[in-house]
């Protein structure tokens, strides 16, 4: 190592001088559990620059106090990437990534109870020639299945160190840690440990491609040859290398002509080159498996299969799903309400204390109504997020999430999505924030974006106060056909409009993004049911809450201050003599609302509703309190009779007609169904998509939808004579 090399201890960057260790493995291999066991809580969750893929980095120290950086790469099944997440991992492993250039050691994590399929990725990686240690996780599950693994034989066959581990119980972790330290201290070997069994003809045909990879990308001879087999047998692999020519066009031309030549050469000898790597590799896998593993052939139904008789049963399965969902909703609606109210009381108390200390005036108002309210706006979401992620983490860890996706995949396909979108979308009926955060379990990045974009159309709990005020004041309690009450039907229609808008948008987005990518097949592993660990579940819950506060919280806080200032400035000359109603009319928000009137007139809205539309960007329910302020109703909420009466009594000063009619109320409700009136949603979409592109698209798209929707309702209603 050069003497001017400075290893950095900052987890945000990884220099070539750092001891960079990557953790790789299949999804469901318990890779993250191994990562947690190795790093403890010394870890940081972020994003890879410019993409939505989550980046987890942690650290451990060796016996001399030197820092070893561990990078938990997204789980994958093969070195041919299928998604953005896969590509991040593959690029890092094959030295093509700008994010992490020098990997000193690869820790492969595999599920010991599911070794046959795992060996596919394992042998792909051992062929790369980097130092590898294989951690066989969940050895206890393999043993209880009656599978006997000869780790010595396996180490022999693979040419790498093999260690048995039960990460959840901490077994084998100390040994793994010392092995990592030991291997880092050794000289880096460039020898591939296994080689794909191919015929001489194939090897000869692949040679020129391999030489190209070796010359241009600096991989070892054997690793280059391994890449060459992949490139020849699969177009996605070829594409991956073609996009890594550092802008040198002649390289891309050379590589594709080399690949074409190799394929032609094999065609001439009637050798099938399509998926040649995969076919040969599974022969290698079967050979290693036969040598090192003794599976229990007499095994009857596994416990997972028995559980699934009930959980994915034709009739009982969906019922259990509904019951689980009801429990989650109950937790978000009712149980989270208790800590939420506690947080609100603390905020009120803080405000009172601040009022005692600070002198009356702008500073006091800023602290009370701006800053403390802004912190409150962030913190009130914490209980909902923590409850939802507690349950989601349990569902994911236990293996149930994949079953929910299995049950509802057919249903979600109507919207062009897969079963993975079910839980995020249903959670959004409570609140879109945790719903959008839950889209992380969707593997396809396109499906994830679409789900994020349609989640805010689900009528969340913050819309209820607006619906309740409008329905309570303007929808007469008639009964339709003697059983259905008109108010209830109205409320139901609002939910339906949201669902239809979501479905329509999903189909539209799928069409718009579908041109480049072909229809992805939905191939999903159904992992065995496992008992989730409470420690890990709590960690997940805590991590999500932390990310929300630190990342989305900043944006929400800043926006609350801006919204406060809009409704506060300019100050009237004599603030104490002016009513709240007058003050808000004179404010920037008030002036903006009045200036907006010509634009929103065709929707049946006047300037007062315009002000409400501006202030309710903080949160939809703020609409109600803004109306209360404008109409000078003290302590008005959605069930307040005085506020309802004030709205009903309001007349247009020129025509003398009622400002609010049932039609205006309907139009306003439709606007609230469709519009993105929620700064927290904007903030979380920014955080989850790692760019401003999607949140800005969302605001524009949803506002246009809302405008069109309200326009149709109001103008259509007037034509039908309902005005």
């Amino acid at each position, binding site marked *: 190592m050069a003497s001017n090399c400075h290893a950095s201890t900052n987890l945000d960057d990884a220099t070539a001088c750092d001891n960079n260790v990557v953790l790789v493995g299949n999804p469901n291999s318990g890779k993250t559990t191994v990562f947690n066991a190795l790093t403890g809580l010394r870890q940081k969750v972020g994003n890879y620059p410019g993409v939505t893929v989550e980046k987890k980095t942690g650290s451990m120290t060796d016996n001399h106090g030197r820092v070893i950086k561990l990078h938990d790469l997204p789980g994958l099944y093969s070195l041919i990437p299928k998604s953005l997440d896969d590509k991040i991992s593959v690029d890092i492993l094959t030295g093509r990534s700008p994010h992490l250039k020098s990997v000193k050691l690869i820790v492969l994590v595999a599920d010991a109870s599911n070794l046959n*399929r795992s060996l596919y990725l394992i042998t792909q990686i051992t062929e790369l020639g980097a130092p590898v240690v294989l951690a066989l996780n969940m050895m206890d599950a393999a043993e209880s299945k009656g599978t006997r693994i000869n780790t010595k034989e396996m180490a022999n066959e693979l040419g790498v160190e093999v260690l048995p581990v039960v990460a959840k119980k901490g077994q084998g972790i100390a040994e793994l840690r010392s092995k990592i330290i030991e291997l880092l201290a050794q000289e880096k070997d460039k020898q591939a440990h296994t080689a794909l069994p191919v015929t001489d003809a194939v090897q000869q045909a692949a040679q020129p491609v391999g030489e190209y990879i070796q010359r241009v990308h600096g991989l070892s001879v054997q690793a280059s040859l391994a890449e060459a087999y992949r490139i020849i047998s*699969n177009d*996605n692999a070829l594409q991956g290398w073609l996009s890594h020519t550092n802008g040198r066009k002649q390289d891309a031309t050379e590589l594709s002509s080399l690949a074409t030549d190799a394929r032609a050469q094999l065609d001439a000898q009637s050798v099938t080159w399509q998926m040649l790597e995969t076919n040969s590799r599974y022969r290698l896998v079967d050979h290693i498996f036969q040598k090192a593993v003794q599976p229990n052939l007499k095994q009857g139904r596994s416990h997972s299969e028995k559980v699934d008789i009930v959980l994915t049963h034709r009739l009982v399965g969906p019922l259990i799903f509904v019951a689980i969902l009801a429990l989650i909703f109950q937790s978000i609606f009712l149980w989270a309400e208790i800590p939420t109210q506690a947080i609100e009381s603390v905020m009120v108390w803080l405000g009172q204390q601040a009022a005692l200390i600070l002198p009356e005036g702008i500073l006091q108002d800023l602290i009370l109504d701006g800053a403390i309210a802004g912190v409150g706006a962030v913190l009130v979401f914490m209980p909902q997020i923590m409850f939802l992620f507690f349950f989601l983490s349990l569902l994911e860890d236990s293996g149930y999430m994949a079953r929910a996706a299995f049950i509802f995949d057919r249903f979600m396909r109507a919207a062009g999505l897969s079963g993975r979108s079910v839980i995020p979308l249903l959670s959004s009926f409570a609140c879109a924030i945790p719903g959008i955060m839950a889209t992380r379990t969707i593997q396809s990045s396109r499906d994830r974006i679409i789900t994020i974009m349609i989640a805010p159309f689900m009528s969340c709990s913050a819309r209820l106060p607006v619906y309740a005020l409008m329905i309570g004041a303007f929808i007469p309690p008639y009964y339709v056909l003697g059983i259905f009450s008109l108010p209830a039907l109205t409320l139901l229609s609002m939910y339906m409009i949201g669902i239809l808008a979501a479905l329509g948008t999903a189909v539209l987005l799928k069409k718009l993004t579908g041109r480049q990518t072909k229809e992805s*097949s939905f*191939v999903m592993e159904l992992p065995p049911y496992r008992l989730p660990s409470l420690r890990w579940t709590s960690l997940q819950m805590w991590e999500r809450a932390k990310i929300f506060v630190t990342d989305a919280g900043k944006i929400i806080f800043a926006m609350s201050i801006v919204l406060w200032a809009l409704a506060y400035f300019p100050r009237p000359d004599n603030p104490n003599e002016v009513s709240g109603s007058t003050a808000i009319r004179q404010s920037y928000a008030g002036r903006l609302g009045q200036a907006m009137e010509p634009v929103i007139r065709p929707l049946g809205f006047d300037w007062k509703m315009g002000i409400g539309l501006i202030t309710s960007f903080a949160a939809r329910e703020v609409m109600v309190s803004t109306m209360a302020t404008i109409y000078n109703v003290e302590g008005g909420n959605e069930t307040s009779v005085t506020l309802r009466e004030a709205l009903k009594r309001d007349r247009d000063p020129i025509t003398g007609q009622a400002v609010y009619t049932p039609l205006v109320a309907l139009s306003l409700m439709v606007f609230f169904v469709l519009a993105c009136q929620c700064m927290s949603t904007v903030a979380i979409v920014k955080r989850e998509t790692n760019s401003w592109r999607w949140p800005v698209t969302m605001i524009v798209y949803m506002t246009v939808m809302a405008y069109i929707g309200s326009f149709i309702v109001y103008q259509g209603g007037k034509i039908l004579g309902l005005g």
Partner: protein
Amino acid sequence: MNTMLSLEKLNPGDNAIINEIKSNGVDHGVLMEMGLISGTSVQLIKFAPLGDPLEIKVRGYHLSIRKSDAKSILVEKQ
């Protein structure tokens, strides 16, 4: 000699040997990388409540694939 049929024609509980993965339509590479190689034995476990997708057992683990994907997998029933 058993007759060849596509995977989704099997009944729950049936065992079969994969004969061929047709490369038309779906990305057959994904299926093959998940271990569905000719000569591999596979068991159909069940269909989802809405009839699609289906659950199979292959190489000791459980996999869910859509009917449209299963159509390109030709098997020999055991």
